[in-house]
């Protein structure tokens, strides 16, 4: 562990923000006040944060339908996101995107994406741009064990290798593509990274429920991809999804006691706390203080979202084109 106290506190806080953001959405969605489809990232926080803590605003990420965690980890404003999900015109995308389309291009966040597998080709383009600019920046696409079965992902992997794009394919295996197990749907012997390897990429693997595993693995991946001329790389993180595919999913596909077990054994926040306390790096009080601060920040974001301006019928017509 090479992280400073400040870096540890920041990483924990980022993960906790995602956790509480999602836990709160899970509650508020059930009141019916939030419209549309919502896919929660809870359980996978260590991946988003372990990746994005290495990145600058010049580095780009492309996310998925389960994108809140990536957005928050890349620096999207918590209040702007909550307002967006509540459909306010003060939201990050003026209430036109919603949960599945949150983006903040100025922060290097090129969009959550409602189409499974659509992100990888976009990250190839961003990775080619990074290669052309030659400043060691990278583009990262997050894909799940669902998106890894899309042809677009295969095309993107090959094109990234051929064009030597500075693109990193981060595969988050949360074991379920929608309601289907990866042991059924991923035809390469339960292994996603080997696909990237077959396309000619250097690959890494890590524990997506352990922030330190993700963070240290990504350090190696980024050290490699930031070298001009090395081209793309891929990494697979084994992780857990604490909620259903979408909010309202009855999750009848889960095994007995599965959710309790993964919440107990595979919770990246609990794992983080244990690691840093055992190693004497932080005290319980440090973490408890962050927990309280984050809860209040999320409460405040909900207060703001509920009070924020609603969009009007005129807003439907703007932002289609720059000029037409």
């Amino acid at each position, binding site marked *: 562990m090479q992280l400073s106290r400040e870096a540890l506190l920041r990483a924990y806080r980022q993960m906790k923000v995602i956790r509480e953001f999602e836990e709160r959405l899970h509650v508020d969605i059930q009141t019916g006040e939030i419209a549309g489809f919502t896919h929660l990232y809870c359980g996978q926080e260590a991946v988003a944060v372990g990746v994005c803590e290495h990145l600058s605003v010049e580095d780009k990420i492309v996310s998925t339908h389960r994108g809140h965690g990536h957005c928050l980890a890349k620096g999207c404003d918590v209040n702007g996101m909550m307002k967006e999900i509540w459909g306010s015109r003060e939201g990050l995308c003026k209430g036109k995107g919603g949960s599945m389309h949150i983006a903040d291009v100025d922060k290097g966040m090129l969009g959550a994406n409602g189409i499974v597998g659509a992100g990888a080709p976009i990250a190839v383009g961003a990775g080619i741009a990074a290669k052309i600019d030659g400043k060691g920046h990278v583009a990262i696409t997050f894909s799940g064990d669902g998106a890894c079965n899309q042809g677009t992902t295969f095309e993107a992997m090959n094109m990234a290798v051929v064009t030597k794009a500075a693109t990193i394919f981060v595969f988050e295996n949360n074991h379920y593509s929608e309601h289907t197990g990866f042991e059924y749907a991923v035809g390469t012997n339960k292994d996603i990274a080997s696909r990237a390897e077959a396309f000619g990429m250097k690959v890494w693997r890590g524990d997506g429920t352990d922030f330190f595993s993700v963070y240290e693995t990504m350090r190696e991946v980024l050290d490699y991809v930031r070298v001009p001329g090395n081209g793309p790389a891929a990494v697979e993180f084994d992780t857990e999804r604490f909620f259903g595919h979408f909010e309202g999913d009855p999750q009848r596909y889960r095994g007995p006691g599965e959710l309790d077990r993964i919440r107990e054994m595979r919770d990246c926040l609990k794992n983080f706390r244990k690691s840093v306390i055992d190693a004497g790096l932080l005290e319980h009080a440090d973490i408890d203080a962050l927990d309280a601060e984050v809860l209040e920040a999320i409460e405040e974001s909900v207060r703001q979202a509920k009070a924020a301006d609603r969009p009007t019928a005129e807003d439907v017509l*703007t932002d289609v084109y*720059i000029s*037409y």
Partner: protein
Amino acid sequence: MAKMMYRDAVVSTIAEEMARDENVVCLGEDIVGGMGTPGGPEAIGGIWSTSTGLFGKFGADRVIDTPISESAIMGAAAGLALSGKRPIAELMFADFIGVSLDQIWNQLAKFRYMFGGKTKCPAVIRMAYGAGYNAAAQHSQAVHQILTGMPGLKVVMPTTPDDVKGLLRTAIRDDDPVIFLEHKALYGVKGEVSDDPDYMIPFGHARLSRAGQDVTIVSTGLLLGFCEAVADKLAAEGIGCDVIDLRTTSPLDEETILDSVEVTGRLIVVDEAPPRCSLGADICALVAEKAFASLKAPPLSVNPPHTPVPFARELETAYLPSVDKIEAAVRKVLSYR
């Protein structure tokens, strides 16, 4: 003014804009041609000769020869555009939108709106379309009706080499995603083109290629020439046709069409795509709605039939709107009193 072929207008405009702005990059299948072969880069060049010489001038970073991966090409264009570049992506045949449509339709076209207007997406997607090569059902289609119906895209259909110059430059400098449809049967057509390095034709401004008082004929692309031939023939009989070249189907120059129909009272739309939910149907509906009082005859659309594009010469000829079919349509609307 210089005389050049339609295809040369494409490549020269791209070269001029790449020289002017280092953020302009090209990508597509075989746009260099010969990569990874004994013949070496540019052994062939793009199959339409619309990228000839670009690789030598601008290098591999900016002229990116891609595998046959249309989704990845269109997605890469989207990612480049979001990352500050101005990509010009080539889809070798417009028919291949089928394998790349998500990246055009759900990504490029929608970013700005979904992201609340906080980004721009300056991508040009060039594609060769249209019949006339006996290339049959999967390499001959006119796809503009699919793309024109997609909010967020602009759709450009140049007819002349000069239009290619002025419209492609506008497309490359435009900050919205633009579909640039090049008719493959027009690539060899020669014409005068402007040599002004900043020559731009604004989108949504149709061109009146023939003027007359009796019938309005709206078209673009290969079939525009057929319409002009009909207009010239009928002029000898004292029948005057306004022939309107749309140049862009999105945005659509409604004003030029409506102004013309107010004078002529008769409308024919000549369209290379199949008839259902077509450009012809769209413009006939527009005129029926907004110029009803001016109409002296029902508006007519001349389209191919509701079939795939056939292969054999006789079949393809029968499929396409012809000079004779267009003339018959004009005479039909003239027969109404």
